[in-house]
């Protein structure tokens, strides 16, 4: 597939937004300005961007504990995201969810999720609703290689296929389940081998290549939209920072060489080189984009820092939906 220069800039912009948001979050965490856990998406930007770039605004996604990238790629607002990470009342979740539950249902982003594997059954439900309503919407379940070892994933994949739902299972195989390498936790190399067991097609793509991911996503999303049922994409990717936080905690679990080799394949910089090589963009174009988005991030940090914390009277608000319509 050939993608227009506008589409290439769109995919690039999604990736840079994710990178800048995540690096800012990492710096804030290291400065002890963010409470709680932080699972950074740096290195994996091509996956969320390539897939979400194939979706419509009213399509749905479910995410993982490493979820900021998915929300950014679906159009998430920096201000509300940064405020949520700081636990402020202006955040996406009013300071009640934080990094691991960041969400925007109006963008079809049904939540990052602190429970590994739990997003996939929810994506199946969204896909069911989309088929039921018949408006051509699709759902995407993002999940890691590690979550394909938990029961919820298998139940979701099987049910999606049994009910022939409009869903794409998008695996981010970053080779580690938390701190343990994939080859210690599964006897197969490619997660996509599992797809056939549920009765859906699957494809492996280079998760560091946003065009490759996007191409596969366009095909899978189109299949789902046209009633062709579920399919799986396995994107081989890598997280540049730690499972959570920025620096390695405790003992080293992967070699410096391994990390360095993957960093050479940085999904943003390699894509920029290609766009320049192909005459689609100039270095100056990219300098402008980074500068513009850096300013957005700086503003978001300022917005979040200036925002108030939620007041204690909010603790028991939003537990239930009131039957009179109020929260």
């Amino acid at each position: 597939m050939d993608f227009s220069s506008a589409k290439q800039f769109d995919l690039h912009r999604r990736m840079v937004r994710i990178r800048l948001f995540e690096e800012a979050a990492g710096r804030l965490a290291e400065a002890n300005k963010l409470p709680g856990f932080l699972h950074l998406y740096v290195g994996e930007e091509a996956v969320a961007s390539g897939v979400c770039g194939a979706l419509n605004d009213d399509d749905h996604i479910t995410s993982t504990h490493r979820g900021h990238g998915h929300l950014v790629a679906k159009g998430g607002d920096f201000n509300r995201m940064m405020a949520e990470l700081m636990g402020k009342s202006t955040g996406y979740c009013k300071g009640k969810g934080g990094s691991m539950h960041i969400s925007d249902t109006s963008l079809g982003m049904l939540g990052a999720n602190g429970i590994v594997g739990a997003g996939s059954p929810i994506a199946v439900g969204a896909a069911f609703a989309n088929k039921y309503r018949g408006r051509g919407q699709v759902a995407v379940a993002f999940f890691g290689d590690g979550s394909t070892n938990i029961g919820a994933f298998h139940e979701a994949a099987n049910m999606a296929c049994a009910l022939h739902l409009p869903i794409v299972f998008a695996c981010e195989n970053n080779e580690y389940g938390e701190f343990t390498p994939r080859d210690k936790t599964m006897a197969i190399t490619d997660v996509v081998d599992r797809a056939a067991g549920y009765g859906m097609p699957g494809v492996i793509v280079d998760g560091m290549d946003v065009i490759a991911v996007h191409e596969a996503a366009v095909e899978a999303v189109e299949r789902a939209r046209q009633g062709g049922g579920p399919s799986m994409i396995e994107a081989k990717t890598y997280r540049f920072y730690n499972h959570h936080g920025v620096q390695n905690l405790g003992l080293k679990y992967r070699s410096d060489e391994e990390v360095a080799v993957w960093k050479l394949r940085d999904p943003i910089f390699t894509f920029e080189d290609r766009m320049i090589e192909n005459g689609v963009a100039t270095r100056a174009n990219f300098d402008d984009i980074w500068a513009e988005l850096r300013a957005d991030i700086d503003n978001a940090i300022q917005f979040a820092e200036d925002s108030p914390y939620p007041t204690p009277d909010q603790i028991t608000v939003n537990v239930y939906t009131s039957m009179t319509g109020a929260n």
Partner: protein
Amino acid sequence: MSDERKLTYAQAFNEAVSQMMEADPDVFCAGEDIGAFGGVFGTFAGLQAKFGEKRVVDTPISEQAIVGLGVGASVTGLRPIVDLMFMDFICVAFDQIVNQAAKLKYMFGGDATLPMTITTAGGGGLSAAAQHSQSLEALLCHIPGLKVVMPSNPYDMKGLMISCIKENNPTVMIKHKRLLGMSAPVPTEAYGIPLGKGNIIRPGKDVTIVAYARMANEAISAAKELAEEGIDCEIIDPRTLQPLDTDLIIDSAKKTNRVVVAQEAVRFGGLGAEIASQIQELAFDYLDAPVSRIGAPFSPVPFSPALESQYIPDAKSIAKGVRDVMARR
């Protein structure tokens, strides 16, 4: 007269679902064996024939995915009824119930509405042994974000099930397996019983029995026996356990000054403990005796009828509890 028409508890459930599916095209049902087979307890009988496979969906034996289906479909705008055949199976789906359904709204800062009903069948008395007989309602009532309903008769079943379906929060409707065949007059029209409102099944002045689901019926039998001994029991059926109609219970405790709480579940850490605690907090000065709790022994539900019949509380054990409370001066 339509009020004289009788339905069983199972039929009352079925009619509530059917009427709500007619009224709202966003309502659908999904679960194991609920389609052509009509559910293992017959509670979904005829619904697939009436509403089609699109709206009455046979699922794989996948409890996590069944509840996840409800979570995802409700948060994107439908009104699912998802069935977990036996209450014991909530344990298989507990992440989706506890960490997802109950918490999404809160974790999203209010930016989610989950109008889903989880239906299931609890309780013992069928020699179904320890994995198909439990009363696990206390586990669910402990989770902020869930509502929990346990009807004791066909009339309540229909009204409460209609309210569950109309409810904009995740609600668990627990049918009692031993009540499925219970028959009583049920109005033909659709009606709701508000969640969180209890019912005074029998007014009385000497002692209050708080009992729900099958135990409410056992309490009625106990009250008849006790009336012959000159003890006038007031029976309160909370109907909804979360939210609990504490006011109704406290008012009754203040009137009778003596309370027995009866549950089929294991006594330790059950709803009875919560109710007793609330009574001592809110009506301590009115009590003439400690609040008594009737419940099952601290063991799994046994299989043999010889054991199970002794394990599950009944009218006899409730009556004994009342006599003990009345003996306190």
